[in-house]
Structure formats: C-alpha cells, structure tokens
C-alpha cells in the first residue's frame, strides 16, 4: 500500500488553488489512491462552499441607503455639533417581520406540539389524547403565556431572571410579545432591554433600542411594519397549529414522566426530556413539561440550554410558568399605539410592507407554496442573481405544463420527506407574475405516484438546478410549503393561490388562465406523462 506523503498544508494549498498545473496533476493522481486525503479535500470543499454561501448574503439597497443617510446626517452636521446618535430607521420594521414576529407565532405553536409529543410517546398510557391536545390549541380563541427568562452578563453561573409575557388572539391574528433581550453582548442586569412586539392585524409595532454615543445610555425606539390584506389573512391562517411538528416529536421520544405536582390547584404530570440536533448525541436543550392529566392542558414549561460543546452543563433559559387558554386579554393588549418615551423610527403612515418570501437580500428564494387536493404543489419562486438585468426574455413563449423558464437557478422537483416510497414531484411551468421589475415563476409540481395526505409528511425536499451559476441555497419562506396551506376547494384556491399571485403582481391580479379547474386538469395531464419519469441528473439536492 502506498504511504501518504501529503501534508495538510499541501492539501489546503491545493484546495485554495495555489498549486501549479504540475502540482495539481500530481495531487489529482494521489487523490485517486488516497482515501484519507480525498476525505480531507471533500471537507475543505464543503467549508469553502459554506463560506461562499455566507458571501452570497447581501444587504438590500434600501437598507444600505437608510444606513448611509443616517451616517451622512451626522457627517454633515459634524462641523457644527457634536456627533449624535443615529437610529437605524425603517429597516427595523422589516427585520421584525422577517425574524421575530413570525417566530413568535411559532413559539406558541410548539407548545401545542410539545404536548402532542408527550402524549404520543409517553411511557404510560395517558388519560388524555393527542387529538385533545391539538383541539385544545385549535379551538382556543386566546392563549396567554408568561414566565421568566434567565439572563447573565457573561458568567452563566450568575443568572438573573426577568419576566416575559405573550398573548395570542388566533381568530383575529393579534399578538403581543414582551420579552427581555440580551443584546449585542453588552447586556447588563441594570439595564435589561425589553422588546415589545404587537400586531393589531394591520400593523406590527416593534420596539427596540440603541446606545447613544453622547451619553452612553440606552434609548428606546419604536417602528411599524404594514401587513397587506393578503398577509393579514396568511398571518391568521398560519397561526393555526399544523401537524408538521409531529415529525419533530421524534426528538421527544425520550421524554419520561418524572413526577406529579399541584400547580394552582391543578394536578399536573411532569414530563422531562432532552433534545439533540440531528446527527448529534449531546443534547442542546432540556425541557420539563407540566401537563394536566385530565385535559391534556399544558401548565408550565421549563427550558434549559446546554452551555458546553462536548459535555452537558444545563443552564436555565426560560420558565413559562403560566399558560392559559381562552382568558380575556387586558384592555389595549393588542394596541399598536406607541408607548410613551419612545422615539419614533417611522409611523403607520410611512410603514412599509414586506415582500412575500424575500428576506435579507437573497437572490434565489421561494415565496410561497400550496398543496392541492390531488397532491400537486404550486410553488412561487424567484431567481435572479443579477437584479439589474431584466429576465423578461426568459419568460417569453412559456406554456402551462411546459418546461420551467431557464432561469439561473430552478426548482425542478420536490420530494415529500420523510416518505419511504420514492415519490418525485416533477416541476412544470404554470404561470408567472411580475412586480417592480422582478419576475416570479409559479411552477406546478406533479407527483409521479400517489401522494400521501399532506398531513402525513413533514416537508418537501427541494431539488434545484443551476444554469451557469454557482450552486447556492434558495432562501426565503415559507420553504416548507406549509401544511396550513393545503388547498381543497375552488374558493380556497382563489383566496390563497390567486391571492399570493396577486400579491406579487404589479396590477394586483392573478393571471386569468390559472383557474382552479384548469390547474387540476393540467396536473392530470402532466401526471399521465410521468409514468416513466426519471429525475434529472443535472441537479443539486438541497434538503429544506
């Protein structure tokens, strides 16, 4: 057996392209024979690809402009006055919509999911059932959660606790979230920074803060984001729990009942478990859940995070010690009137709307997806890595049911996961929309075999193809083509699919030919042509 004489330095120099042609040939020959080096080179490659994916992340122009204007305002006044603090203006609102608020809804939904897990995988037969837990959430008009968050200033053995509180009105799509945030690594217990997020169904109000360079104090600010009518409806619909979480409950198989406790005159079973990320053995989170054995109602959740990388040291994270259903929220709970003492970043009149799916300047992104009753999927996506170049030509002469437009990146197939049977949804062009110079492809993805019901699987794997561009991840949301967005009637199709298409059209209308009946007929025609369908070889599999 040939001994490997290549050093790590040589391998990295090879991967980074520092080798001469002769050295490349030599190394290539070596790699054919040496498995160890092949593995290392592959690992280097993955790392560099990861760095490239980070390098693809781009700040959007609006964000650049507002940041620049803010600094310029100071620069221009520098001759006359001392430097003043600059508040980051309208983008704060956008951040909120894209990160915190949508996560907020999920935060409560997981509670329902957590309950399900405990029921489903419980070691003993519980006196309550999975359906009851789900129904409890589904039928609740309001949900109220409050408790404590544990924070520290760098030494996680010295924790201090601060209250948090969440309110949901699911029927009307209202929410209120009030949490302390450890921010920028300069958190001090003397100045806890609270973020308040409130949605009144039309606007989302978000508070934040900045540190003044003048007085080195924290100053509170408030900003607004506007929801379009479609996004308002979407907001409400996706606040519903969805069974996708059931698959995540695999992580909770190890939860066990560890005791009982009386909380607020109610007896609760205590279930405890640890959760590890996929492929990892060391858990990153531990939860203790108090459940009413009579109703399946969750009473309390205590969460710890593991502070170590290679061993376990649990640090308390949050204690949601009050969880209530159908209690009346206090007056003005969902009011988006700016709290006193806050500087206004913008107003409701100047608030901006978020584009469906787009986030953080991603160039390839999925906007929204819908599963039809026959198992087909309509998925809207955008792919243009050169935003200043029009893609109009690529959308000419396209036919419904024909090939997808030849964009720099395409979503060519979907696969339901986890489903053992080898089912592929082949992508064909359905229609497109155009808004503010951007083109959105609405593909129809038709399964080559009978599909399981949408609530029987977790997600779709997205199969991409790159045409002359470097493979990179599709971003955006919802990547999952959410279960809540299953379409079972013409009315639903017109509300949601047409609504989404209209949302991404300059004229606010969906393409006329994409009717419910025509789309189902088209899917049937495509399906009949897929009996011998073979997946494309030229593709990137990205599992979302």
């Amino acid at each position, binding site marked *: 057996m040939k001994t490997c004489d290549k050093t790590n330095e040589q391998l990295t120099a090879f991967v980074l392209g520092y080798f001469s042609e002769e050295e490349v040939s030599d190394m290539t020959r070596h790699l054919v024979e040496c498995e160890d080096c092949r593995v290392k080179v592959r690992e280097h490659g993955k790392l560099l690809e990861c760095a490239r994916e980070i390098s693809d992340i781009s700040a959007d122009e609006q*964000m650049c402009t507002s940041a620049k204007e803010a600094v310029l305002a100071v620069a221009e006044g520098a001759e006359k006055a001392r430097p003043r603090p600059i508040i980051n203006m309208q983008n704060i609102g956008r951040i909120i919509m894209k990160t915190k608020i949508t996560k907020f809804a999920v935060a409560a939904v997981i509670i329902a999911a957590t309950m399900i897990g405990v029921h489903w995988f419980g070691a003993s037969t519980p006196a309550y059932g999975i359906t009851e837990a789900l129904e409890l959430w589904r039928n609740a008009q309001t949900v109220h959660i409050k408790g404590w968050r544990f924070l520290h200033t760098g030494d996680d053995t010295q924790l201090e606790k601060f209250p948090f509180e969440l309110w949901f009105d699911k029927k009307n799509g209202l929410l209120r979230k009030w949490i302390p945030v450890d921010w920028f690594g300069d958190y001090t217990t003397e100045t806890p920074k609270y973020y308040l997020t409130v949605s009144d169904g039309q606007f989302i109000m978000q508070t934040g803060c900045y540190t003044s360079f003048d007085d080195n104090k924290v100053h509170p600010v408030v900003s607004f984001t506007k929801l379009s009518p479609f996004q308002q409806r979407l907001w409400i619909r996706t606040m519903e729990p969805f069974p996708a979480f059931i698959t995540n409950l695999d992580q909770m198989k190890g939860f066990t009942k560890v005791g009982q406790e009386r909380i607020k005159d109610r007896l609760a079973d205590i279930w405890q478990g640890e959760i590890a*990320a996929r492929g990892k053995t060391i858990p990153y989170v531990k939860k203790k859940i108090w459940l009413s054995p009579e109703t399946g109602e969750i009473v309390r959740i205590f969460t710890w995070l593991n502070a170590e990388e290679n061993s376990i040291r649990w640090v308390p994270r949050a204690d949601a010690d009050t969880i209530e259903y159908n209690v009346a929220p206090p007056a003005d709970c969902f009011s988006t009137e700016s709290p006193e003492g806050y500087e206004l970043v913008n107003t409701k009149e100047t608030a901006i709307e978020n584009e469906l799916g787009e986030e953080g300047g991603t160039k390839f992104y999925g906007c929204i997806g819908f599963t039809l009753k026959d198992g087909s999927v309509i998925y809207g996506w955008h792919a243009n890595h050169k935003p200043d170049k029009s893609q109009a030509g690529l959308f000419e002469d396209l036919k419904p049911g024909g090939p997808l437009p030849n964009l720099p990146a395409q979503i060519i197939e979907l696969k339901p996961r986890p489903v053992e049977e080898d089912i592929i949804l082949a992508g064909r062009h359905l229609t497109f929309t155009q808004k503010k110079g951007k083109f959105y492809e609405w593909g129809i993805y038709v399964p080559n075999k009978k599909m399981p019901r949408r609530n029987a699987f977790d997600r779709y794997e997205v199969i991409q193809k790159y045409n002359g561009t470097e493979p990179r991840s599709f971003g955006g949301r919802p990547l999952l083509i959410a279960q809540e967005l299953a379409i079972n009637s013409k009315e639903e199709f017109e509300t949601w699919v047409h609504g989404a298409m209209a949302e991404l059209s300059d004229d606010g209308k969906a393409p006329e030919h994409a009717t419910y009946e025509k789309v189902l007929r088209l899917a049937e025609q495509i399906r009949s042509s897929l009996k011998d369908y073979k997946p494309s070889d030229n593709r990137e599999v990205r599992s979302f």
Partner: protein
Amino acid sequence: MAKISLKELVDQYSTTVLKSAFRIVGDQQYAQDIHQEVFLAILRRWDRFNGQTNWGAYLYRVTVRKAMGFVKRSRLPEKRFGSLDDWAVIKEDPAGLLRSKELQHELLRRLSKLPRRQADVFVLSRIEGISDRQIAEIMNLAPQTVRVHLCRALERLRSELKDFLVDR
C-alpha cells in the same frame, strides 16, 4: 494628497462597510449598528487622520474586526438564526437547512476564535472575495504570508468542524 471629506468618505464606502458587516453578522440591525460604530469612531478621531489614509483598506480591516468581535462576544446562533428557545429554527429549518445554517454559524463562531490574522485573512478572502494581493495591502502583509494564514485557517477550521462536515 488632499484629505477626503467625511461626507465623501461615507458616500464612497458606506455600502461596502454595511454589506461586509451584514455578511458576517447576518442581521440587518446589527450590521447597521456596526456600520454606525465604524463611521462614528472615525468621526470622533477625524482630526488624527491625514491625507495618506488608505480608506478602503482601513475600513475593510476595521469592519471585519468589529463584526468578528461581535460574533465572538455575542450569542450569534440566537441572533443570526433565531433563538433555540423560540423554536422558530426548528420549524423553518428542518434537516438540511438547519444543518446548512448550523455549519454557517459554527464556521463563523470558530472563525472568530482563530488567531486574528488568520480569521481576517479568511474573511477577506473567502467571504469578501478579495484577492490575496489586495488582502496583503489591506493588512500590510506579504502576499506569501496571506497564503500561509489562509491555509492555516482553512486547515484549522476543517479540523475543528469535522463533525459538521461528514456526509449525512
């Protein structure tokens, strides 16, 4: 060389600074804070700069340092990819996406702990896409030294991130 005005400086380099910071911290608000800090720090010491400053190089260096400092000091996973506590990451990033984001996060986190020059060279080269020659200029190093730092950074990252790089 005539001294550039502060306004001209901001006009010319603001976007570059913001985009660089955003790539590293992955959050608009934090990127804008870093952007603000970079320029205000210059503003506060404006009189100390003379007409000889290579602003492109200086701003790259300062921005990358500030952003990496942020990554090192802060809880990047919660800021960049959502808090584990609120579970959003689980909903939106199941399986592959989670792994991909996890690797990005781990890469940045480990990167922030590398020796300063290795980290800066890696960021400038592989994330900012700057040539070795320009990096040498920015960091006042010999091009050969840039290569050495880059090779060492890559090997060290590979070695530390092995668990994240295995095929799953």
